[in-house]
């Protein structure tokens, strides 16, 4: 039953995603891509939960090592992705009214 519920959420999110993105002007394609790329770093939550579960229950060291590596990679994706997007967006300016 739980799996069905997850699929339900998945399907609705996909439709929501299509609705949100389909009207984006070309100017914003790059920031949108790098911004959504940063969101895909949400795996960091998965990595954290996996690592925390492994440390809590004294699972094998291998699991902890893999988890920590995953945390590091995903955090790079998240932090770098958001900062780079912000750097780009900071540059986008509207035309100033003629003096």
């Amino acid at each position: 039953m739980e799996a069905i519920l997850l699929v339900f959420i998945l399907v609705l999110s996909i439709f929501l995603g299509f609705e949100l993105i389909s009207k984006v002007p070309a100017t914003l394609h790059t920031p949108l891509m790098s911004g959504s790329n940063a969101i895909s770093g949400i795996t960091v939550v998965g990595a954290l939960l996996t690592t925390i579960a492994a440390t809590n229950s004294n699972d094998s060291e291998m699991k902890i090592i893999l988890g920590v590596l995953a945390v590091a990679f995903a955090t790079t994706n998240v932090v770098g992705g958001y900062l780079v997007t912000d750097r780009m967006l900071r540059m986008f300016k509207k035309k100033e009214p003629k003096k």
Partner: protein
Amino acid sequence: MISLNSINLLYVLASILFILGLKKLSRPDSARKGNLISAIGMLVAIVAALLTLEILEPKWILVGLGLGAVVGVIAAFKVKMTSMPELVALFNGFGGIASLLVGWAEFIGFRESVETLSVVPLVALVCAVLIGAVTFTGSLVAWCKLAGIVGGKPFLFPGQKFVNSLLLLGMVVAGYLIVTNTVSSSILYLNPDQALYLLIGLSLLFGVMVVVSIGGADMPVVISLLNSYSGIAACAAGFIITNNVLIVSGALVGASGIILTSIMCKAMNRSLSNVLFSGFGSGSKSSKSSQVEGEIKAISADDAFLILEAARNVIFVPGYGMAVAQAQHAVKELSDLLEKNGAEVNFAIHPVAGRMPGHMNVLLAEANVPYDQLREMDDINPVIENADVAVVIGANDVVNPAAIEDKGSPIYGMPVINVNKARTCFVLKRSMNAGFAGIDNPLFFKDNTRMLFGDAKETISCLVSEFKS
């Protein structure tokens, strides 16, 4: 200890922030705020995950977080705007490998657990590992191509499709073995651990194989597709650990990546499978359809200046060459001088100009060109007849009239910016070499085309100093 319910509420809050952030990110005036909102959403999600800590010794987790944050900050601030596509590709690869590692770590957990396993998380695990691995190596190859570490030409060899199909088949079989052999006891040749290693290896190789055969000019499509994959991989990871926030945000990213990919494909009038499998631009099948006739007329910067000075309506058409020459600031200066001189100046941006979607927009924004001066191809083509001068800066295929006139041309049917309809057309180019797609460009031989040979930045600077003197 915080209750599970409040942690889940925090995940809901994070999802709302992601959705609002993406919504705002799709409008130029609110985009920066949108990015900030989605970053706050990410922070909320991370804090929620950390709240599940039971023991107060999270030192390894902090090491991972700290290391990632430092690398991310340094990379984000050091990168030049012209190398933005590489960096996005690299970050994307990191997201992919993180999903792979989560899948792997969870797999070890599954193997050690004594509970009975259901099929769903295992199928999700196979997906996360497979897609994560393809995203990782695919992005790395894209990064190498974009950064010029390897050549941009597609790498092709006989039987490539066959090898790729075999790899894909191997991945499916390995995935099947993982699922069946973990649920019931080993009945087939490989035990689940071996099958997982096989799956990881084959998927990593597959990611390399798929992207090496794609030319550099098609990278906008590849990057947005890989971006979509990294979202799908995160989504699959969400199914393994039954976490909604991963599923929601992964699906959002997956959907947005697919939309961008299809926009890019449409802009080139090619199907996605054609981009992925045809090895376009390898030059191997250059159809000698129609010989280009006419002669090339070069022009000096001095004469170009005289024409520009008289022009009332100027359109700049930038391409990847502008990024290579780092000419965007000089171009902005020239456009300011032209405006001061009374001319109307616009920038016509082809959807696939450059090496990632919207690449030119970012570079010109860096040079302080206001975004309402950047016009899309469909807006500019109907009025291009009114332009006195169209200045093509380092663009080639996106202004190639063969796409309209020559049925035998490989790019026939691709929408292009019709610069040859402007009264005069300047083409700034380093040499007479063909463009990325390896196709002759009849534009250079048109009566109203004048070639300005040399480095784009130097040429533009020359024009700027003429205006100033």
